């Protein structure tokens, strides 16, 4: 199973771009990288998923280098409402019960 490592916390200011990195050195060939956002007293919410290179949606971008040993979630122009915990999940999407969540990064956005 791919073990993941994320920074425990990050601070940012409104309007800035935030990049959160997840390390997964022993990622397997069939593994995908998925990111979730969690607000207090709520369940996590799916943000974005990718396998290689770059994926972008209306909320975020996900950058995955060629060796796939890490991935970076990029949040453009954050606001106070982006304050949350962000988790990466790495594993084989066809065997989701064998995937591993990271410990999460607490992002605090300041005015």
């Amino acid at each position, binding site marked *: 199973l791919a073990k993941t490592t994320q920074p425990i916390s990050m601070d940012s200011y409104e309007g800035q771009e935030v990049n959160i990195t997840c390390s997964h050195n022993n990622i397997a060939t069939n593994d*995908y990288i*998925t990111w*979730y956002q969690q607000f207090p*007293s*709520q*369940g*996590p*919410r*799916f943000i974005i*998923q990718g396998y290689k290179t770059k994926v972008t949606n209306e909320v975020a971008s996900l950058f995955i280098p060629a060796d796939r040993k890490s991935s970076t979630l990029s949040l453009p122009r954050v606001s106070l409402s982006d304050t949350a915990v962000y*988790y990466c*999940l790495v*594993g*084989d*999407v*066809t*065997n*989701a*019960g064998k*995937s591993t*969540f*990271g*410990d*999460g990064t607490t992002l605090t956005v300041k005015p």
Partner: protein
Amino acid sequence: DVKVTQSSRYLVKRTGEKVFLECVQDMDHENMFWYRQDPGLGLRLIYFSYDVKMKEKGDIPEGYSVSREKKERFSLILESASTNQTSMYLCASSFGGQGGHEQYFGPGTRLTVT
């Protein structure tokens, strides 16, 4: 909109009681999951089910069992609750195949065992 509902938001039980946590999803998802979340320990998978009556142990199955008799319902059972099972319990569901990582979570049940 996908909806995953859990039977209780808050639950208080006594040591030794049998506890049932229920989860229902309305999107015809094949996969269902039970996690527990504790401060500093992130999300840890207790059990996973990929079909009716099918289950797999996750990272921390000890002290728990599960039941999936219908596709939309996944139950977590604490046979004899202990204080170290005080935690936030989160249920999730997803499609099978390539959709396995797009999990939809319920609001969670905060269980306190006294």
